[in-house]
């Protein structure tokens, strides 16, 4: 059992307790004293074991505090990253080249050591998460400084190094933020590397939306190919990064066809990507509903609305009175609400 599964079990026990209370009050299900005592003993013992082994939240107030801790530790990590970079920038110029090189080369290893130390001392990994962010920042500072000291021409290789390092930290400690950072860096590296091989400027990786979209598909599909038994919360990150990395480039191509590798007129390419965007967003919603992936449904719905708005904007904005345009948008939204309500009722009948 991993921490995520333990938390889900703790949540189910808490909800079951609350439901039993309601059922007792309404006289639907009343346990005997013996049954109640047996259930309470089991629930208390299981919850205590889960809290002791996985440090899960066993009440609503604990859950809210945990969210607060995650936000604060992330902000704290980012603040330490900024402090590290600015502190180094302020004083590095007073040292010889080889002192500069030794200090920056050692920093990520020191960060890694502190992350490991924090992870062994504290099970909730809030401090380890903070130190992992600082370690990644230290590695970025390391390569940036080496590049600056020796006046190296920047290449895309640094993105690969930072991405791999972030992923290794993520998998070592089960941290989602370094995972997202690592996936983002690798998603940037792939189009940059392909651009370089094609003789183009690697910094134009942002202008290669089709390569980003391909990378997005790979990232989305990765957890389907590689099961994550230990880090059960990682597929969520892969799906979010994958959907964004696919649909944002498609959105860009639907308005800037000149960025496409496809031959043909820009306007034709833009219309094709608009249709692809609508179809993919709808597909993401359908897949998310089928698999129970809430984040995929939500992102799919948001992009579907965006693509639809863009299409209607192209058709009507120039000639239709703008108040009428937004009225029709509202009516379409109401129509979708009615359709989804009907689908929801149908799903409820099927389940019953």
């Amino acid at each position: 059992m991993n921490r995520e599964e333990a938390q889900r079990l703790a949540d189910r026990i808490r909800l079951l307790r609350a439901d039993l209370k309601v059922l007792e009050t309404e006289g639907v299900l009343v346990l005997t004293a013996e049954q109640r005592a047996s259930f309470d003993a089991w629930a208390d013992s299981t919850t205590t074991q889960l809290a002791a082994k996985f440090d899960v939240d066993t009440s609503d107030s604990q859950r809210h505090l945990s969210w607060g801790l995650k936000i604060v530790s992330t902000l704290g990590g980012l603040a330490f990253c900024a402090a590290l970079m600015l502190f180094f920038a302020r004083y590095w110029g007073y040292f010889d080249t080889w002192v500069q090189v030794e200090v920056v080369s050692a920093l990520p290893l020191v960060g890694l050591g502190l992350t490991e130390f924090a992870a062994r001392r504290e099970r909730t990994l809030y401090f380890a998460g903070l130190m992992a962010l600082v370690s990644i920042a230290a590695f970025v500072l390391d390569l940036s400084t080496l590049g600056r000291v020796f006046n190296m021409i920047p290449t895309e290789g640094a993105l690969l190094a930072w991405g791999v390092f972030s992923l290794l930290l993520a998998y070592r400690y089960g941290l989602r933020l370094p995972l997202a950072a690592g996936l983002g860096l690798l998603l940037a590296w792939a189009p940059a590397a392909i651009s370089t091989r094609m003789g183009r400027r690697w910094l134009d990786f942002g202008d290669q939306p089709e390569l980003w979209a391909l990378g997005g598909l790979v990232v989305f599909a990765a957890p389907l190919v590689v099961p994550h038994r230990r880090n059960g919360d990682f597929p969520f990150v892969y799906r979010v990064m994958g959907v964004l990395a696919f649909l944002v480039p498609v959105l860009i191509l639907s308005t800037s066809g000149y960025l496409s590798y496809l031959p043909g007129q820009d306007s034709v390419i833009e219309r094709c990507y608009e249709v692809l965007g609508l179809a993919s967003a709808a597909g993401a919603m359908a897949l998310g509903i089928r698999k129970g992936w809430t984040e995929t449904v939500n992102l799919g719905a948001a992009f579907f609305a965006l693509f639809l708005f863009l299409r209607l904007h192209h058709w009507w904005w120039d000639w239709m009175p703008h108040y009428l345009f937004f009225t029709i948008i509202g009516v379409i939204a109401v129509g979708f609400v009615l359709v989804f309500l009907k689908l929801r009722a149908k799903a409820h009948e099927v389940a019953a």
Partner: protein
Amino acid sequence: MKSRMTLWAAAGVVVMVNALALLHAVRNRAGGPVQTVTLSERELSWYNTSEDSGVTLRLNWLHAHDQKPWIGEDSIRALGFNLDSDRNEANPWRAFRRQGRRRAYVAFELRRDGPREGSQLAPMDASREAASLLSKYRGRHDLVILPVSVMPYLREERTEDGRGGTGRRVVDLQFMDVPSEIHVPLPLAEQVRAMKPGRECEITLQYGRFFEPWVSAVRFR
């Protein structure tokens, strides 16, 4: 906690990448400089900030607004661009955009007929291969060849006096990503810090096989 393999792998990535970076720096300087050029305070400027104690020189070049483009269309075609496809594009900024920016090498020379103020370094030639430029301009110490990104663009041809346009469109070549920031290590950095505004100086830059420079001398006139 998972096995320590990922921990050692993370440490290994840091050690290996640092080693590769240092090896690259050593290889750049191995065999001596490929180019040497001496520039003045007009071509290399330095700005002091309290938040950054490092000394970084900034390479400046002449942004000429000549009548003619600084490079011919044949040379632009030799860089791999198709100049026939977008010549009639209504919006000149959209022309050639699909072809994207490409890597190339541009030769910058110190002009003797430049303006009295500002940098005298101006682009004068470009090629896909550095070797051809190095061979063509071998022995010249008033010239430096740098790796850049280039892209053609359409602009209006200027009149001879430079004040107006002729109505004709010409193809010119824009370049970017010029490696223009040059770190100065100790002890030369102390000399640069001592440089007061308006004081004339000469700074000698040497470039290695990867076109990555280092400062070899700073002299005040």
